[in-house]
């Protein structure tokens, strides 16, 4: 990582030095460094250098040895942003997220951004805990949340937030009372039930071994009774407490006049337990405590794993916190700036939006001209120019220069809220599709119940009530064994685990099953098939300069630019960029600067042409998906740069592989139709539509679904969220928004597109395994059912049969782990 002075001197023109803090390339000629562990280390920007110095000054430089991933690039903190943090000290704003422990002690929950490895947790905890007045600061590595307790007399929340910012992380306070605490409670309750069922089943199983051995070898009657009573005591809490979710679900199903999988589960648990209690009381007959407790424990384990994966997928409320800024700068009639919470803005307010800031609400531009990045909301890949009178959407980012805007709409009326409402509605409709699976299960359950009733009536008629009851129970227990209930969950868990190791996170239980049956795969373009930001794809030197020199010149002019075009030029040029003077930015057009006594311009062809004596012929070979940027000086044009939103590697292979598997691939995008058509042609996607709003995309998915298609959607942005929710199965990119994550059934953490193909393959294999398991479980039932119905099954026989069949199913499912 570290570069010595010698190696830097040996190839002065262009070598790749990376920033010691964030790992991004360092522009040669810059002098940012920081002394870490006694060595001078290169830094890419002032922000990273400041952060590194803060870390060293706090004595925490071990962070750089422990970390396993480069840190996030540190943004320079503007004094205004620091002043914005002070707003969090206001009592009225604190009400929503600060808990008062006693007179002076306060507690708040924070979302931490920028955590990449365990060393970040260590760094944050040590840095903040060392602050005077901080009583406790703990970071949860799994959720990237932190809890801070502080003494109000000694420190303020803004001081703590600023301290976190100083070491390069961003912390937002959030209101944990909503989803967060709900999930936490759900998890705690699930863990408690699991513990009760687990401990209970282990103990009962131990006693059951004694009972079975006693059955075979003979056992004194009082010991047998004693063991049975103890089993009863141990099984009672398992049935009364741990199995409660099944009873609730079963009653809910029955009330809706449906038969779900929970009905026979509840029935078997209740009937087996009731019969066991009755037999224990009378001192004869069979007891089934071991089957009951083990049954409950296995089912709960499966559900717990599914819940844990779902919780991980992130939350909508958190995504919204990130989309809209917490504070805005309001201008009063005299032009005085006041920092206010965004929630306090009202229609008619005039707000100043600095470059790099997020627009706090919907409105229109009053003064200034700039370009605005709306890619997260609309999918449009390039920033759009905005000047006085143009509309601005809350949640988009101002890029070039300050804007004064007038607020039109706030809160629930904004475009962002509308998207969220669309999403809620789509999510609400999803269970109806999922009910299809339940309906199939219902037939099986109905058949099972019918057989039990018939067996009971037959034995009652030809024998007596007691025999009939005993045999019917044997039928219920034997036909509702672990094998059948384990058939799907074990295959799911094994496949989910294998996929997670490959970088595909599964967040919903039904995801794999549905993915295996998918007929159509719909892709979003921006951020999914492409990177979502422009990259230099070609340089055409017109004059006698080398292409590389032209790039270096352009990058020098764009130095420090936040505009995606500027960033792309800088990234392409790499190191070896000279310094320009008298730098001037014309928003929406380009930049100008002086170097070696000559004036250069880079930007739109017309802007560059204005500097040159002769007019520049506009490019006629414009292809729709790319933008041409010109570089020129007073003597004429120097070079053309072709920029386009480059496709991710493997996109074409992935499309071909999916088509080879018989899937219809479609492209739906909010970007300009001609760009979309170009990308579709490049990837050989037959159906592609551009210029679509989230509503249009939703319509298209509905149309396909009405034709009977099973639709998978792959997307990343907020604009994709409603479609992700409406598709039967949705995949979000790991770099996508939290909102997209919250809606998606699967998340591609590694961002490699070939993972989509792997996911489909794995899902299909899982379905095969699940069918094998079902076939085995049902085959076993077909053999066991007549035996049980005929009254030939003794307890130890069914115990061995059940264990063997469960074991087989689990082992079969575990084959999925080897991929």
């Amino acid at each position, binding site marked *: 990582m570290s570069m010595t002075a010698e190696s830097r001197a040996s190839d002065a023109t262009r070598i790749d030095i990376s920033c010691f803090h964030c790992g991004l390339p360092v522009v040669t000629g810059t002098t940012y460094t920081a002394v870490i*562990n*006694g060595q001078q280390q290169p830094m890419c920007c002032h922000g990273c250098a400041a952060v590194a110095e803060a870390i060293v000054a*706090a*004595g925490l430089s071990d962070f750089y040895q422990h970390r396993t991933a480069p840190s996030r690039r540190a943004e320079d903190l503007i004094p205004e942003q620091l002043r914005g943090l002070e707003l969090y000290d206001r009592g009225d704003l604190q009400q929503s997220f600060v808990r008062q422990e006693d007179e002076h002690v306060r507690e708040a929950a924070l979302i931490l951004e920028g955590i990449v490895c365990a060393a970040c*947790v260590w760094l944050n905890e040590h840095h903040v805990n060392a602050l005077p007045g901080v009583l406790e600061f703990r*970071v*949860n590595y799994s959720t990237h949340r932190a809890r801070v307790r502080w003494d109000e007399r000694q420190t303020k929340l803004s001081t703590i937030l600023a301290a976190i910012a100083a070491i390069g992380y961003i912390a937002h306070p959030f209101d944990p009372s909503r989803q967060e605490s709900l999930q936490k409670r759900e998890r705690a309750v699930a863990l408690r039930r699991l513990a*009760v069922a687990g401990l209970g089943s282990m*103990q009962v199983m131990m006693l059951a071994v004694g009972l079975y051995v006693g059955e075979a070898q003979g056992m004194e009657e009082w010991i047998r009774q004693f063991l049975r009573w103890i089993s009863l005591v141990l099984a009672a809490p398992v049935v009364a407490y741990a199995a409660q979710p099944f009873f609730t679900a079963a009653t809910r199903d029955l009330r809706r006049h449906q038969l779900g999988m929970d009905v026979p589960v509840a029935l078997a648990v209740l009937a087996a337990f009731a019969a066991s209690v009755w037999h224990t009381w009378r001192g004869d007959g069979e007891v089934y405590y071991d089957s009951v407790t083990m049954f409950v424990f296995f089912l709960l384990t499966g559900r717990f794993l599914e819940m844990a994966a779902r919780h991980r997928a992130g939350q909508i409320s958190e995504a919204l916190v990130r989309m809209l800024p917490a504070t805005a700068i309001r201008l009063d009639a005299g032009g005085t700036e006041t920092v206010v919470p965004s929630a306090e803005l009202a229609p008619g307010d005039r707000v100043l939006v600095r470059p790099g800031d997020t627009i706090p609400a919907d409105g229109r531009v009053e003064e200034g001209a700039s370009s605005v990045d709306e890619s997260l909301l609309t999918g449009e890949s390039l920033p759009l120019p905005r000047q006085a009178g143009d509309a601005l959407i809350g949640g988009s980012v101002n890029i070039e220069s300050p804007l004064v805007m007038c607020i039109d709409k706030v809160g629930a009326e904004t475009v962002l809220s509308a998207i969220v409402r669309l999403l809620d509605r789509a999510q609400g409709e999803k269970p109806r599709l999922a009910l299809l699976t339940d309906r199939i299960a219902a037939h099986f359950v109905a058949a099972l119940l019918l057989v039990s009733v018939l067996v009971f009536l037959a034995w009652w008629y030809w024998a007596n009530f007691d025999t009939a009851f005993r045999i019917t129970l044997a039928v219920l227990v034997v036909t509702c064994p672990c094998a059948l209930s384990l058939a799907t969950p074990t295959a799911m868990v094994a496949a989910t685990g294998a996929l997670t190791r490959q970088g595909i996170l599964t967040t919903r239980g039904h995801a794999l099953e549905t993915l295996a049956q998918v007929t159509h795969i719909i892709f979003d373009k921006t951020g999914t098939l492409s990177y979502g930001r422009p990259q230099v794809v070609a340089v055409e030197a017109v004059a006698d300069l080398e292409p590389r020199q032209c790039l270096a010149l352009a990058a020098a002019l764009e130095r420090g630019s936040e505009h995606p075009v500027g960033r792309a030029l800088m990234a392409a040029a790499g190191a070896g960029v000279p310094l320009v003077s008298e730098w001037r930015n014309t928003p929406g057009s380009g930049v100008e600067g002086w170097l070696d006594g000559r004036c250069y311009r880079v930007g739109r062809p017309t802007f560059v042409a204005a500097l040159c004596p002769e007019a520049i012929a506009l490019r006629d070979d414009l292809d729709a998906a790319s933008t041409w940027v010109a570089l020129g000086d007073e003597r004429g044009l120097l070079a053309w740069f072709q920029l386009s939103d480059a496709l991710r590697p493997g996109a074409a292979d992935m499309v071909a592989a999916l088509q080879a598997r018989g899937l219809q691939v479609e492209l739906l995008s909010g970007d300009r139709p001609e760009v979309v058509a170009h990308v579709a042609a490049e990837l050989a996607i037959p159906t592609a539509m551009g210029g679509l709003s989230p509503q249009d995309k939703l319509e298209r998915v509905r149309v396909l679904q009405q034709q009977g298609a099973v639709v998978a959607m792959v997307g990343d942005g907020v604009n994709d969220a409603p479609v992700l929710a409406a598709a039967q199965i949705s995949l979000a990119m790991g770099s996508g928004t939290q909102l997209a994550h919250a809606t998606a059934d699967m998340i591609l953490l590694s961002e490699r597109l070939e993972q989509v193909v792997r996911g489909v393959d794995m899902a299909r294999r899982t379905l095969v395994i699940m069918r094998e398991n079902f076939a085995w479980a049902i085959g076993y039932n077909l053999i066991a059912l007549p035996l049980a119905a005929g009254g030939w099954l003794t307890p130890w026989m069914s115990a061995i049969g059940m264990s063997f069949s469960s074991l087989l199913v689990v082992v079969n499912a575990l084959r999925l782990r080897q991929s």
Partner: protein
Amino acid sequence: MRILYLLIPMALGVVGVALWGFIWAVRSGQFDDLEGPAHRILMDDDDPRIPRYRDRADDDKPLNG
């Protein structure tokens, strides 16, 4: 075999304690983060360069600082 009357209730007691311990662990948040603590244990907390520990280790000279 009458000892079973004593041994099995004792076993029940042990199970009760185990259950109470688990529920206490869930309540006190030990299951909230299952990944972090495994890494946390590996990080040095007593490095003399951390200001809080500097007084304690005044004589120790940092190796490379």
